[in-house]
Structure formats: structure tokens, C-alpha cells
């Protein structure tokens, strides 16, 4: 039967199309993307989300394209401003009551946005190799960071609202060390060489990170390092007891061995010129760090016993002899100050004090470092600032200090310390170490003055690293000012991405994605976790303060496997399982939707994990009713339904029981496949022991392979989904014979596929049974002769 053809006007195009097609179908054929949320090709049009709307001349208002059939002479506008703004508003209204975090706060706080929930979850599931790969996607220095990172992620960790944060950093260290010391540590896959060349100036965390990502993309990379060895501040700024050299060397080697050329003792402005490099290479990344110490600006500071903190640390790490007195006064409150103080102690100082001009709350050093320093006997004095250093001939006599009090807030939001008049006092000292800040030496950059701002600092885009000079990028402390290692590593990663964009002829840009955040709508509070079990964090074995005070041996000794798995099990899995497939997230980005534009009441519902295979998170439900409809109209079951009216409307299992107690559900998973957001997700079963799912459901990027289900003779069309070697899910495919339908067996009962063959099989009672070829074959249904 040939359908009648009609002519329509679609966005100004005259088209001849078969009558009876929907506007959405026509748009698809024309390659025009119209967002849809409540539409499901397996179901009748429904018309609830109103994001697919278009304008049709003569119609009363917008019409849903998913449900409107073309008629002869129809004039359709699918993308004018009116349509776009209405779609945007629809999305914003939906988002205003879509209470969920796309990504967890830990990841969002991490400067390099490491997939923390992902790797922590994989550790809980004992998939350590996959965890490591996930980390290395965003951080080539996990063993280093696992030791020195001040862990902003842990401050943001939601587990703080329950008891104490997940030991994110120590878990990273566990996984990374496991790999690093395995003897066959992980190398990322490299793409074929492109023949393009990049020069990276500075072999610190930023430079090496940039090199790591560029070399993976097939770029020939040369790193020019000014010092004798690569590592930058990691090597020359952090004492051994925190950052053992063997770990650092090994980890740097995992980067360099990918084919990066390292040239040491090459200093910009001394051994080479920027302009030459720019000529010789396709792109240049500046990552020379911030190595100059700020002056104290007090009388007498030029005495030889007044040392600069970073220079002091550098000399020690280089094995130089440094003269240090019995009484050491360290000025400052950052990690350099703490490191300098603790190092002084290890060099034999008897009395070490730290003088800081604000209070402990404002101290930039990490709180565990502060605790450790105090435990080792270092005296920290708050609200004091140096006024003068008094010498007595060759040696120092005392330092004069003034008491401070906190006044108005400054630009950084911290209260500015102001001196209390007449409160000066003196403290006897032999050595003063100043650690009040660092800055970059921009002298070698002055040859290209466009690079610098009026005050002589490098200017560049915070996200892309692009500078005013085309083809020259910056990363690390040089760009950001002195900061933490992971920020430099992230900067390196971003600069590498910008270089790649640049080499492709594109303007480097910072990719943005839409992220739904609970806190944008309604703050997450402890009460949200009132039913969560209190589980104290795993304690890492450390050297005692007595043991460590006088040695440079590493203090923190790492987790055991069981500790790591238990600790990872504490993760609350804050991010959304549907991260990589959520339609709402995709459209919100396409339409620049702002979730908080129509701020109002937000319905918080508890997560329902009672179902063995499906997690239900009604707070994320957008009420598209696809689950209800597919369950009833396609499967003929009707296990889900609506409840209440108006804004309170809700989708619930029938009789509003927990999903696991719903009597008619056949666990076909159709509702999950229909749900356009993360309100219905499946529990991915990676952590399986003795056939029982343990551990975490991890949102992972998947590779899809089309195939057929082999659990019975029907042979349903399915998609096998993998993350690396792991089978994550088996999902439906809208093709013969099942056309999107699936059964419980095919969909969910596949966790055994991830059981390593070496693990002993179990019988129905969970007892392990003798492992023999015949029983394995029997289990596949192949007849065997006994």
C-alpha cells in the first residue's frame, strides 16, 4: 500500500513526504535534532514533556512533534527562537524539580575532575586494574598524588555528612602503588604518530602531565627541564618522608617511557630561547613553575641564617649541606612552611616554631599535615607576624613579632589580619625560614612581552592555557600562581588538549557540559543520610611520631587490599548511574538550560534499592511515564503507576510498595531502558563473589557490541556493553525477534560472566563445588559422557 504523499514546508524547505509521518520522523530524516524525553519509538505518542515542540502555522499553540502527523500544506518551524526558548523553559522547569547530581561532589571539586566515584567503586568491586586506568585518564601521577595531595575532594565528600570522608586519596595511592610496583605497570594505548612536534618547557607535574597526554595523541614531545632531574616541585619541594624518591622516579618513568624526550639542565633564557623553540616546534607549552620566594620585607632579613623555605627544601632534597640552628622559626602557614618546619626537625633542630599571621582556620596547609607537625612537637603560634630579625654578628639573636587580630574580609574572603599596636615581643632564634609565598620568574619570558601582563605575570586562559601568543600555551604554577600538584597536573592535561585543538586548526576551548547539582536546588544535609550506617574510615598504618621525627622515611604506609575494599565500600555513590546516557543532561547542554532559574519547592524522595536489579530514584523522575507505559502497553504487566496530582505527582510501583515487594514485576528491565534519566537504573554487577553481587554499581563509559542473547533458544537481539574487559550490562535492541523486549534472564542474570575462571564455581546452596571440565561443560548444556 503506497501512502499518499503530501507537500509541506519544513523550516523553509519544501518537502514531499508520506502522509501520516510525524513531524519528528520528518525532522529525523532531514537530520534535524529535536529533543524528546517522553517519546519512545516502542510506544504510542504521549505528549507530556513538551520539549519536542515545534510551531505549526495556524495551530493554537506549540504542537508536540512526536505526536503530530504531517498534513498537506503544513508549515512547520522546528528551530526558531520561539521554539528554542520554549524548549529551554520546559527543560528548566523539569530541572527545577530534578533533584540529582550528575557527577559527585568529589569529582567536581578535584581540579582534574578525576572520576572518583568510578575508581572508588571499581576498587570496592576489586577491579583494581580498571580503577587505575580510570584514574590515569585524568592524572598520570596517582602514586604521587596519593601521597601529597591536600585532597579538596575529601573536604567535599558527602560522607562528611554521615561520619568522615571516604579516604579517596589513599584509595588512589593503593591502586596506583599496586600497579607501579607490579613490575608491569600500565601503559595507556598510543595513537599513531602525527608527525607534529611540541616543546614543553618545565618537567614538573604540569609539563609532564601535558607530555603524557600529548604523546598518547601521537605528538612528538620534547620536555626541557632546567634542573638535573624531572619532577619539579614534586622532587625539589617536597621532603622525602612525604614523597619517597623511588616512587617519584618510578612514576615519572611511566610517563617518560611512552616515548617522551627529556632534556635536562636546559633553562629557558640561558640554554635556549622561546622564539627559537616556537620556530622549531608546532606548539610550545610553558610550565616553568613558580620558584621565587617572596621576601619577608622586615629589617634584617638579608642575614645568611634567614632562609627561603623553598630554597631550603630544594637544597635538602638535592642532598646539599644546609646549616641549621637549634632554634628555628618558620614564617608562614602553607605546606611549604609545614614541610620546612618538619624538615628542620629531622635535621636536628631542637625547637621549631611556626609563626602564622591568621588562625588555624585560615591556614592553607592541609589539616592532616598540621596535625602531624603538632604531633611531632612543632609549636604553631597563630596571629603573629614578624617585624624584624635581630642579628648578633654572624648569628641570629631573635625575631621580633607583633600580635595580630582579624579585621575586615579581603578579596579572597578571608579576614585580613591587622597588627595590634604595642603588642610587639621577641623570640630567640638561630635560624629563620621564610615561607610566605612564591612567584614565577618571568624574566625568560620577557622576550615575548605579549605573554605578560602589566605586573609582569604571565597571562593566559585559566581553562585552556592559551596565551596571547598563538601556539604558546601555559600550565601549572606559572599560569595559576603557586598551587597544589593536582591543579598543575590538570593544567597540563588542559594545555595538552588545547594544543591538540590548536594543531587541528581550532580555537582552543574549554568544553562545558551541563551538570545537574543537588546543591543548586536544595542543599544536601546530614538528615538526607539519616538511615545510612555509620562506618568509621579505615586507618592507615603510619610511623609513630617518635619514629619519624628524626628520619626521612615515609610516614604513611598504605592500605592493605581488604582495607582498600572496605574503605571503598563506604562511598555513597553520589553521582548518577545514567551519567553517560541521560537525555536531560544532553538537552540541557544543547539549550543552555539553567536548573536554578525557576527555583522553588523541590521534592526529595528516598532512593529505593529494594529491587534486586533496579534502583529507583524518584527525585530524578521527570514524569514522562515511559516506564509506566512500557510496562503496561508492551509487557502487559502494569507494575508501575501514577500517584497524586499536580506538582506532587509521582510514579510508584503499584500500591506504593517498595519496588522489590511489588508482586507483578517480572524484572524484564524495560522500565530501565525506557527511562530517559537516572530515575530508574540497573544495578551493574561487577563486584560478584560466589555469584552474589557485592560492592558498587559504577557509572562507566561503555562500549556497545550488538549481539544475540544465548540464554535460551529465542535468540533475542541484545546489546552487550563493556567497560574495558568488563561486561557491564546486557540491554535490549529494537530489532527482530524481540523488538526491544527482554526477559529477566537475558537482562540481569549475567553477572557470572564477570567471574574470573579461576574462581571456584558454586552450587545452588552457595557451596563451592569441585571444578572439573565435565561440570563446566554440563553447565553450558553440552552433553558429556561421565
Amino acid at each position, binding site marked *: 500500500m503506497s501512502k499518499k504523499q503530501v507537500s509541506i514546508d519544513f523550516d523553509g524547505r519544501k518537502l514531499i513526504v508520506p502522509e501520516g509521518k510525524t513531524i519528528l520522523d520528518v525532522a529525523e530524516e532531514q537530520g534535524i535534532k529535536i529533543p524528546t524525553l517522553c517519546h519512545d519509538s516502542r510506544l504510542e505518542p504521549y505528549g507530556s514533556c*513538551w520539549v519536542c515542540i515545534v510551531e505549526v502555522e495556524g495551530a*493554537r499553540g506549540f504542537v508536540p512533534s512526536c505526536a503530530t502527523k504531517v498534513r498537506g500544506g503544513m508549515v512547520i518551524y522546528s528551530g526558531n527562537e520561539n521554539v528554542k526558548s*520554549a524548549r529551554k523553559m*520546559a527543560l528548566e*522547569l523539569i530541572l527545577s524539580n530534578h533533584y540529582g547530581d550528575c557527577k559527585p561532589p568529589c569529582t567536581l571539586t578535584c581540579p582534574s575532575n578525576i572520576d572518583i566515584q568510578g575508581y572508588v567503586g571499581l576498587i570496592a568491586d576489586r577491579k583494581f586494574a580498571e580503577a587505575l586506568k580510570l584514574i590515569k585518564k585524568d592524572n598520570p601521577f596517582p602514586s604521587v598524588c596519593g601521597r601529597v595531595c591536600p585532597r579538596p575532594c575529601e573536604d567535599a565528600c558527602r560522607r562528611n555528612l554521615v561520619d568522615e570522608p571516604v579516604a579517596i586519596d589513599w584509595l588512589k595511592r593503593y591502586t596506583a602503588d599496586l600497579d607501579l610496583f607490579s613490575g608491569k605497570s600500565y601503559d595507556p594505548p598510543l595513537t599513531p604518530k602525527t608527525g607534529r612536534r611540541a616543546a614543553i618547557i618545565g618537567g614538573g607535574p604540569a609539563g609532564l602531565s601535558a607530555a603524557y597526554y600529548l604523546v598518547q595523541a601521537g605528538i612528538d614531545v620534547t620536555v626541557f627541564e632546567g634542573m638535573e632531574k624531572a619532577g619539579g616541585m614534586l622532587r625539589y619541594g617536597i621532603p622525602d618522608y612525604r614523597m619517597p624518591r623511588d616512587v617519584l622516579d618510578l612514576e615519572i618513568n611511566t610517563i617518560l617511557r611512552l616515548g617522551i624526550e627529556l632534556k635536562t639542565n636546559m633553562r629557558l633564557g640561558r640554554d635556549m630561547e622561546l622564539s627559537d623553540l616556537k620556530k622549531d616546534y608546532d606548539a610550545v607549552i610553558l610550565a616553568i613553575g613558580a620558584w621565587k620566594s617572596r621576601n619577608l620585607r622586615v629589617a634584617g632579613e638579608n642575614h645568611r641564617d634567614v632562609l627561603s623555605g623553598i630554597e631550603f627544601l630544594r637544597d635538602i632534597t638535592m642532598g646539599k649541606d644546609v646549616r641549621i640552628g637549634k632554634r628555628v622559626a618558620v614564617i608562614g602557614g602553607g605546606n611549604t612552611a609545614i614541610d620546612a618546619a618538619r624538615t628542620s626537625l629531622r635535621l636536628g633542630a631542637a625547637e621549631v616554631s611556626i609563626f602564622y599571621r591568621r588562625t588555624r582556620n585560615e591556614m592553607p596547609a592541609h589539616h592532616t599535615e598540621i596535625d602531624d607537625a603538632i604531633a611531632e612537637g612543632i609549636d604553631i603560634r597563630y596571629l603573629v607576624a614578624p617585624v624584624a630579625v635581630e642579628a648578633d654578628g654572624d648569628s641570629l639573636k631573635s625575631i621580633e613579632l607583633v600580635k595580630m587580630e582579624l579585621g575586615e574580609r579581603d578579596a579572597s574572603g578571608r579576614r585580613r589580619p591587622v597588627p595590634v599596636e604595642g603588642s610587639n615581643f621577641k623570640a630567640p632564634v638561630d635560624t629563620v625560614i621564610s615561607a610566605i609565598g612564591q612567584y614565577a620568574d618571568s624574566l625568560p619570558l620577557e622576550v615575548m612581552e605579549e605573554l605578560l601582563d602589566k605586573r609582569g605575570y604571565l597571562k593566559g586562559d585559566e581553562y585552556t592555557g592559551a596565551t596571547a601568543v598563538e601556539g604558546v600555551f601555559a600550565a601549572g604554577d606559572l599560569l595559576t600562581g603557586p598551587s597544589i600538584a593536582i591543579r598543575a597536573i590538570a593544567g597540563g592535561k588542559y594545555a595538552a588538549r588545547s594544543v591538540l585543538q590548536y594543531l587541528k586548526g581550532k580555537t582552543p576551548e574549554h568544553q562545558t557540559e551541563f551538570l545537574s547539582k543537588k546543591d543548586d536546588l536544595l542543599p544536601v544535609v546530614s538528615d538526607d543520610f539519616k538511615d545510612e550506617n555509620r562506618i568509621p574510615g579505615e586507618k592507615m598504618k603510619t610511623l609513630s611520631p617518635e619514629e619519624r621525627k628524626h628520619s626521612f622515611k615515609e610516614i604513611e604506609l598504605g592500605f592493605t587490599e581488604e582495607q582498600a575494599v572496605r574503605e571503598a565500600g563506604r562511598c555513597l555513590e553520589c553521582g548518577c548511574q545514567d551519567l553517560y546516557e541521560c537525555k536531560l543532561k544532553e538537552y540541557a547542554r544543547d539549550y543552555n538550560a539553567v536548573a536554578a532559574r525557576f527555583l*522553588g519547592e523541590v521534592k526529595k524522595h528516598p532512593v529505593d534499592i529494594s529491587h534486586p536489579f533496579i534502583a529507583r530514584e524518584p527525585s530524578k523522575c521527570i514524569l514522562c511515564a515511559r516506564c509506566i507505559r512500557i510496562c503496561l502497553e508492551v509487557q502487559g504487566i502494569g507494575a508501575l503507576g501514577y500517584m497524586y*496530582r*499536580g*506538582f506532587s505527582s509521582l510514579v510508584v510501583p503499584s500500591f506504593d510498595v517498595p519496588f522489590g515487594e511489588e508482586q507483578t514485576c517480572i524484572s524484564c528491565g524495560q522500565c530501565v531502558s525506557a527511562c530517559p534519566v537516572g530515575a530508574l537504573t540497573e544495578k551493574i554487577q561487577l563486584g560478584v563473589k560466589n555469584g552474589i553481587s557485592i560492592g558498587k554499581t559504577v557509572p562507566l563509559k561503555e562500549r556497545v557490541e550488538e549481539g544475540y542473547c544465548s540464554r535460551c533458544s529465542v535468540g533475542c537481539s541484545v546489546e552487550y556493553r563493556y567497560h574495558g574487559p568488563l561486561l557491564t550490562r546486557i540491554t535490549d535492541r529494537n530489532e527482530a525477534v524481540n523488538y526491544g523486549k527482554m526477559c529477566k534472564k537475558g537482562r540481569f542474570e549475567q553477572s557470572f560472566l564477570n567471574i574470573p575462571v579461576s574462581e571456584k564455581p558454586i552450587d545452588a546452596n552457595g557451596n563451592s563445588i569441585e571444578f572439573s571440565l565435565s561440570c563446566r561443560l554440563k553447565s553450558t548444556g553440552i552433553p558429556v559422557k561421565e
Partner: protein
Amino acid sequence: MPEYEIIIGFGSCGIAAGARRAFDIFAEEAEKSSAKISVKPTGCIGACHREPLVGVRESDGKQYLYGEVDEKRAGEIINRHIHGGEVIRDWLVKPDYPYFTKQKKIVLANSGIIDPENMDEYIKVKGYKALKKVLFEMTPEELIEDIKASGLRGRGGAGFPTGLKWGFARNSMGDKKYMICNADEGDPGAFMDRSVLEGDPHAVLEGMIIGAYAIGADEGFIYVRAEYPLAIKRLNIAIAQAKAKGLLGDSIMNSGFSFNVHIKEGAGAFVCGEETALMASIEGKRGMPRLRPPYPAVKGLWGAPTNINNVETLANVPAIIRMGGHVYAETGTEKSKGTKVFALAGKIKRGGMVEVPMGTTLREVIFDIGGGIQGDKKFRAVQLGGPSGGCIPGSLLDTPVDYDSLTSTGAIMGSGGMVVMDESTCMVDVARFFLSFTQNESCGKCTFCRIGTKRMLEILERITMGHGGMEDIDKLEELAVKIKVASLCALGQTAPNPVLTTLKYFREEYEDHILRKKCPAKKCKALIRFKVVPENCTGCTLCVRVCPTGSVHGERRQIHEIDPDLCIKCGLCEEACHFDAIEITTGDIKAGVIS
């Protein structure tokens, strides 16, 4: 032949006002002197503001209508009028009132005249004549033409031409078709359909059978809200009577045309009055509108072609057939024919059911028929169309009551709720009230209706609480405009109307709330304060005694004072005070203080 026929208004309005007491008294009297009087109930007589109403019809045909007939008056009427022959003029509801003269009764012609539970009375007033005429003298097509000629438009709200709609359903292919009568009447404050069903159920039934004949349906449903037990009872009686007389059921009047009708009680959700939701509800599903097309005429109840009409629409039908479509079309305006029934309510002197020819102005309805504003306060606005409608200001009182003129004001004809508001009404609060109704009643399907109206409501709440900002007005408008054009059913499409019309005509009130933290009507509690007027206060302590929170202080014969922190603004003190010594002020609270 009795000397006196006593007719008692037995609509819900009358019953609520105490008609049953009056009925009993007259019935008792009838027992005693059976020859002299007969007593019968009827539907709503119309002048609801004077219920209970009792009509006295003398044997010579003279009629008198008494109002406010309580026990005392009932006794007096028996003594003085029936036994004494004296008409008690002071209590009469005078028939020369504009209340009556400006009305024209087609739909309500029998209401208040006949006994709705007695089919013979309906037949006496030419009942079922129209049915007979169409069955034996007209083809369905001719019938549809006649309805088209009458210009009748749906009275359920949308105003769609009934003849056209019947034509669609007629032309739809199908062995099975349904005819539905929509008696869900969910608008708060509307009771037109209830009155018609209670007062003249056979007219609705007759209209429905005629419609079924027109489209070719053999089965029908009357969807009545369960809160209308009297209407349901009378419908059941009417159905049984009609069946018994062969006017309903198989081969009606031996014409070969069969039609059976069922009553379906609605559970009370407002949205179930929407035609597709109503059908879903009859099918036993959750009452939720669905996309149209397909329209019910093509795919309705259980997938069969279906026609659905409102009660009042159907009640017009027998009259149209009897007088002929062209004659009917002589009443009304060019595009709106016939009459419209309104439930006139609010701050009006004479509220009740009124039926006026289309084209009558609002001023005539409110001031001539309704007698103006209670307590001779100033007119503020009239709300038409309930939660889907809008508020019309005094400057537009000369707007004629017809579909198009009302729509052009931003309000709608709606199903016939007409609420009159005086100067003590806060228009922001009115908008908030209606929106909270629609928000609660939204079926929850559409994004804009479910969440958009909620966000609008929150903004209105914010404004009435004194926390609004001027940007809120923009946001309200932005949302309102989009909700109207991006919702599936008319609930969402019309929900912003009360806000849009109040913003259009009473914008300065919004600004008062926002900029001056002032509620001119002194209704928004957060923005008003109760104070003692020292000059008037006699220190009588009455207010101290009524105040539930102990916020009024003062010794006897001393000037009292109200503690603003304790006062919950319940207004009891103001009601109690005999000396006008409690005043309500607004606009004098500093923004920061409002919590």
C-alpha cells in the same frame, strides 16, 4: 382541583437553606386540609439569594413567590394567605424585578415549575415532543442541520459548535458509538449543571437521546460527580421513568432506534471533566487527558466514535427542536446564540441561578439582575470562568456576555461561574487562590502545567507574603505565556488566565504588594497590622476577651494596645469591637520585618 398549589424550591440551594422544614410544615397542613392544598417540590426556582422559596399558585392561575420562608413565615403563610386570603406583600419575591424581566429561560424554563421527579409534569410542558419529532419526522442529517442552524455552542467551556461536533461523530465509521453527557462540573463555585439536573433531568435525558440519534449511538454515559447525590437520584428516577414509558431503551417509541444510558459517578478530580480524561475515567483508568487528535468523534470511549456534551448544552436541545433552530437563533448575538446560565455569586445582593440571552451586558447581569454589590460597597471585579477564566474590571462592565467578547477581555465564558468581587478583595490573592486550585488539580502530565503553574503559585505566594520583587512579575508573565501554549489540555492552557487578567487590569495591586509592602484590600496577612484607634477605644475589654493569643492588653476603661508580635491577624478583635476602635493598616511595615 386543589385551591392552592404550593411549590417549594427543592434544589440543593433550597434544601441547604431549609426548604425541607418548610416542605414539612406545608405537607402537614395539606394532610389536615387535604382538599384545599397540594404541596410539591421543584428544582431551583432561581432567586437563590432568597431561599427557601415557596410558590403559592391559586386555582385561578395567580402565582405568588415568597422568599426566606422559615418555619415562622411558613406558619404565617398558611394562616394569613391560605386561610385568610391575604397576600403578604412584604415577603414576596416580586416578579417585576429586573431579576426576572432581564432573564430569559430556555434551559431553566421548567426548573422551579415542575416536579422533577414526576415525568408527567415534564410531558405536560411538551416534554419528549422533540424526541418524537426527530425520531419520526427527521433524519439524523436534518436534525444535525437544525442544530447547526440554531448556532448552539457547547456550554462546557470551549464553546465548540454542537451541530458540527455531532456531524463529525455522525460521519465517523463505526458499528458502536457512544454519547456522553458531561456532568462533572468541577469549577469551584459553579452549580449550573447541578441545578439543571436537579430541576429538569428529563430535558437533559431527552437532549442526550436526540444527540445519540443524531450521531448513531446506542449507548451512553452520564458522568456525574459523586458529590451530587440529589442529581444522581433524580437522574436515576428519570431514567427508570423514561424506560418504563418506552422513551429509553430498545426501539424507542417503536422507532427501531435504541439507546441505553448508564450513570458513572466521578471521583471528583477536576480534570476528569476534560473529555479525554473523562473517557479514560469511564474506562477505569486514571483520569488523565490525552493528545487530540484523534478526537473523540473519531476515537473515543474504548476506541469507538464518541460524542460528548455538557449538561446545559443538551438541555437546550429539546427546546431547539421544538421551536426550530432558526427561531432559537433569534436570541443572542451573531456568533453566540441562545441563552447562558450563570451561577451568580460573591458580593452580590441577589445571587443565584440566572439565565440571560447572549449579549446581555455584564452590567445588566450584575446590577440589574443581581441588584449590585452587597452593602453598597464599590465594585472591584467580576470573575468569569472559574479557575480557567479571568477577572474583568469595572471599566469593562459593558462587555456583552458572549463567547468572543468575553475571550477578548482575557477571561472566558467558561461553564458559567460568575463571582462578583467588591473593594475588599485582594486581586493578587484571588489569582493565588485560583492558581492553587489548578495546580492541585493538574493531572501532572505536562511539564508546563505540572511545574510551571507550581512556580507561578510560589511567586504569587511570595508576593502576598511581601517577599516579591518586580522581577517576579516578569517571571509570572514569562511562565504564563508559555504555559498557555505548551500544555496538552485546556486546564493547563487556561490556568494562567486569572494571573494574566489580574496583571493586566490590576497591576498596581501587584506593585503595591511588591514595592510598598501594601495590600490595598487588607487581606494579605503578612502585610497588614491590627491597631487600636485610641480616640475610639472605650476600654471595654471585649477585644481582650476574644483574642486567642492574648495579644491585646489594656485595663478596663484604659486605651488598649495590640502586641504586633503576638497578633496572628485573625480579625476577631475587629469583629468584636462595637466602637470601630480596631483599625487595619497596611503599607506601614518595613520590608525587613516581614517574615
